[in-house]
């Protein structure tokens, strides 16, 4: 493949985690986070996403945002794999508190408990919270 048009982002690879804690609609946080994640994919960094608290609703199947006159961007999480972003962590306690399981989510995720989530966060170079 020709590299003529490819940008060369050589340099240190950092571990970025984007932490999502808010319900998908009603505020702009979830959508803004997703946009930053998509942009970050262009820079060949080690990117992961974490979903905690009401943030787990962002991944919920069967959202109808039309009544809110918002765009339903849940399908976009399924595009992340094509951007080579494959590490999606969901906190077990947050899911359980909302009566949900991994089967209720639009994408395959890794469900981790709170202690493991804390370890994952501690391992990052950069944690961005939305």
């Amino acid at each position, binding site marked *: 493949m020709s590299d003529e048009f490819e940008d060369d982002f050589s340099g240190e690879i950092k571990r970025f985690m984007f932490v999502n804690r808010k319900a998908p609609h009603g505020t702009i946080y979830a959508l803004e986070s997703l946009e930053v994640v998509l942009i970050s*994919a262009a820079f060949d960094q080690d990117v992961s996403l974490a979903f905690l608290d009401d943030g787990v609703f962002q991944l919920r199947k069967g959202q109808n945002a039309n009544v809110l006159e918002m765009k339903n961007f849940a399908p976009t999480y399924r*595009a992340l794999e094509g951007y080579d972003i494959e590490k999606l962590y969901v906190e077990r306690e947050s899911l359980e508190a909302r009566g949900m399981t991994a089967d209720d989510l639009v994408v395959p995720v890794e469900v981790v408990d709170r202690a493991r989530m804390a370890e994952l966060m501690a391992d990052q170079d950069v944690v961005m919270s939305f």
Partner: protein
Amino acid sequence: MAYEVNGITVETDEEGYIEDLSKWSKEVAEIMAKEDDCELTEEHWEIINFLREYYEEFQIAPAVRVLTKQIGKRLGPEKGNSKYLYELFPYGPAKQACRYAGLPKPTGCV
């Protein structure tokens, strides 16, 4: 700016992207291409149609390298490379092809 196509007014933003995606038609793409002195061939339509399907499925316009990779998977390596896509769409495959396809500008595209 706006185009009049089959009695429908299709408005675009300042960069030429369609405001209301539902108003897109093949004729709109052809008019946009003509303005750029570009004649749409079957090869162009392969990419445009792919972009519309991608948007339908994921609700975003793909970044150029995602587009390149996916085209390679679907249409083969001789089409899934920057050179081929830039020959078809010299203003940039994501920018120009997305505009013809009636999609918004790809996220992160400046």
